[in-house]
C-alpha cells in the first residue's frame, strides 16, 4: 500500500500535472453577445479548447418559411439579425425578386425610387450595426464609455428609421418589389426634404465622431495591445471557414459584393472597400482582432460616403412599389447573396410556383464565421476568447435563426 503511494507521489513529482477545468461560458454571460454557450477547457487562464454550442435562439425560421407566403416571411427575416434588420429584409427580397425577374411571362422591375431608398436606409442600417459592434467590442475589452457613445449615435439612426417605417428594431420596411409606404413620403414633398435634411444633419454630426472614436478606442494602447496580433485568421482559413464581410476583408481579401457583384444600384456609387493590411509600426497583423474591428470603423466612413452621394443626387420621382398582383415566383431555385453588415447574407429559395416557398435557407454570415472560433481560440487566454467573439461580431439571432 505504501509503495503504491510512494510511486504515485514520485510520478507527481516527475510529471507535474495540472488539472483542467471545464467551464461553461454562457448561455447567460455578459459578453457572449446573446446566448452563445462556449464549453471551455481551461488550464488556468489558458484555453485548451473552446467548443461553441449554439441553438439557444433557434426559432425555426426555415420551418416557418415553408408555411408562409413570401411577403409574410419578411418579418421573420427581421428577427434573424435584429441589429441590421433592414439588410436582412433586403437580402430576402433580392432573392425573391431575382426569381420574379427570371420569370419570362411577367415584366417585373423594382422602381428606381425604391432602389434609392433601399440603399439609403440599408447603408444607414449598416452604420447602426457597426456602431453597435464598436460599442460592444469596447465593452468586451473593458472600456465602458464607447458603448454609450455608440448607443447615443445609434439612437439618432433609430429615430430616422422610425420616421420612415414606424419601427425601431424590426422594420419590415423593404418589401418584395419595393419598399413599404406605411408612412407616406411623396416625391418632392416637404416630408421628403425634411427627412433628407435630417439624414444630412446626422451625417454631418456623425462623420467627425468616427475620428473621435478612433482616438478614444482604436488608437488606445491598451486596446491595441489586447487586440493586435491576437487570433490571426489567415486568408486561406477565412475563405475555408466561409468568413465573409468585414471578417474576410480583415484577413486581407479584397472582396465586397457591393463592388464585385453589384446588385441593386451599387454600381452607381463611388466608394472604397477597406481591406486590412499589416501595420508594423503599431503591431497589427492582417487577420487579427484589431484588423477585423478596424474594417468596421472604416466601413462606416464608406457608408457615410454612399449616403452623401444619394443625398447629393436626391431621390428620383416615381412609385416606391412595383405593380404586381401577388408574389408568385415561377418554379425554380435561386441562391442570392448580398452584403449585409456582418458579411454575405445568402438566401436559397426553392419555389414550386405556388405562393409559398418549398424551401428557404438563410445562409447567415455569423454562423460560418463563428465556426472558426474553435480553431482561433486554441491556446489563447480567457480574455482573448472575448476579444475574438467581439471581433467576429456575431448576432445570435442570425446564427441560430
Amino acid at each position: 500500500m505504501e509503495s503504491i503511494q510512494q510511486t504515485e507521489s514520485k510520478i507527481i513529482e516527475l510529471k507535474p500535472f495540472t488539472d483542467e477545468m471545464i467551464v461553461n461560458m454562457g448561455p447567460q454571460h455578459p459578453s457572449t453577445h446573446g446566448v452563445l454557450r462556449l464549453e471551455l477547457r481551461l488550464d488556468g487562464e489558458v484555453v485548451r479548447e473552446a467548443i461553441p454550442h449554439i441553438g439557444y435562439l433557434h426559432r425555426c425560421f426555415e420551418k416557418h418559411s415553408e408555411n408562409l407566403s413570401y411577403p409574410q416571411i419578411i418579418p421573420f427575416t427581421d428577427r434573424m439579425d435584429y441589429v441590421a434588420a433592414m439588410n436582412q429584409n433586403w437580402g430576402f427580397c433580392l432573392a425573391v425578386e431575382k426569381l420574379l425577374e427570371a420569370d419570362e411571362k411577367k415584366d417585373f422591375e423594382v422602381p428606381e425610387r425604391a432602389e434609392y431608398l433601399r440603399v439609403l436606409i440599408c447603408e444607414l442600417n449598416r452604420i447602426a450595426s457597426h456602431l453597435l459592434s464598436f460599442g460592444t467590442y469596447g465593452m468586451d475589452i473593458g472600456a465602458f464609455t464607447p458603448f454609450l457613445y455608440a448607443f447615443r449615435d445609434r439612437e439618432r439612426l433609430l429615430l430616422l428609421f422610425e420616421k420612415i417605417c414606424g419601427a425601431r428594431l424590426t422594420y419590415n420596411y423593404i418589401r418584395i418589389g419595393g419598399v413599404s409606404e406605411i408612412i407616406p413620403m411623396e416625391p418632392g414633398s416637404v416630408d421628403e426634404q425634411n427627412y433628407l435634411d435630417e439624414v444630412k444633419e446626422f451625417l454631418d454630426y456623425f462623420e467627425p465622431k468616427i475620428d473621435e472614436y478612433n482616438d478614444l478606442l482604436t488608437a488606445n494602447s491598451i486596446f491595441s495591445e489586447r487586440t493586435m496580433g491576437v487570433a490571426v485568421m489567415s486568408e486561406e482559413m477565412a475563405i475555408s471557414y466561409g468568413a465573409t464581410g468585414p471578417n474576410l476583408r480583415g484577413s486581407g481579401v479584397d472582396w465586397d459584393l457591393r463592388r464585385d457583384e453589384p446588385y441593386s444600384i451599387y454600381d452607381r456609387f463611388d466608394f472604397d472597400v477597406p481591406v486590412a493590411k499589416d501595420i508594423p509600426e503599431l503591431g497589427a497583423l492582417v487577420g487579427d482582432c484589431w484588423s477585423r474591428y478596424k474594417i468596421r470603423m472604416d466601413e462606416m466612413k464608406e457608408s457615410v460616403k454612399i449616403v452623401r452621394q444619394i443625398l447629393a443626387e436626391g431621390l428620383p420621382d416615381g412609385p416606391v412599389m412595383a405593380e404586381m398582383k401577388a408574389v408568385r415566383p415561377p418554379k425554380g431555385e435561386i441562391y442570392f447573396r448580398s452584403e449585409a453588415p456582418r458579411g454575405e447574407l445568402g438566401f436559397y429559395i426553392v419555389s414550386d410556383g405556388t405562393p409559398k416557398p418549398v424551401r428557404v435557407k438563410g445562409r447567415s454570415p455569423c454562423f460560418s464565421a463563428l465556426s472558426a472560433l474553435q480553431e482561433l481560440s486554441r491556446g489563447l487566454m480567457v480574455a482573448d476568447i472575448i476579444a475574438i467573439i467581439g471581433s467576429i461580431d456575431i448576432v445570435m439571432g442570425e446564427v441560430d435563426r
Partner: protein
Amino acid sequence: MNPEEIYKTLIDRFGDAVLGFDFELVGDPNIQIAPAAIAAVCQYLAETDSLAFNSLMCLSGVDLGAKDEEFSVVYHLHSLRYLHSVVLKTSMPKTDPHLPTVSHIWKTADWHERETYDLYGIFFEGHTDLRRILLPDDWEGYPLRKDYMEPDFYRGMRVPY
C-alpha cells in the same frame, strides 16, 4: 468558366457520376451528381487550378414534399480567384440518406453539414463531429422533413402551443 463548361469538364472527368444539368430550371441551374461521388467531385472542383472553387457559399438540404422519394443536398460553390460559381445537387433516397462529407475540403461545411443532419437527418459519412447543432441533443425527429410530426411533449414541456 460558366456552369456549362464546368459541366463538360466534370463529364470528362467523372463520366457516369455526373447525372445531368438542368438547363431549364429558372434561377440557378444545377449540375446533378451521384451521391457517392459528391466528395470526389467537390475535391476536384476545389483543388484543380483552373477551377479553384475555394469557397462553399451554402450547403442546404432540400425536401421537396412528403410524397417525394428523395432528399437533395445543394452545394453553392464560388471561386474567389476566377469569380465563377456553380451549383451542385445530389439526391439520395429518403430511406437511406447517406452522403460523403465535404468538411475536409471546406471547413465551413463542418457546421453546415451538422445543421443539415440536425434538420433533415442526412448522415454525412466521414464527418468528424456529426452532432445536432441547433436542436437539443435528445430531440427526436428531423423537423425540416415534410413528413415531420412535432412531438407532443419534450421533457415534460408541451411542444405545440
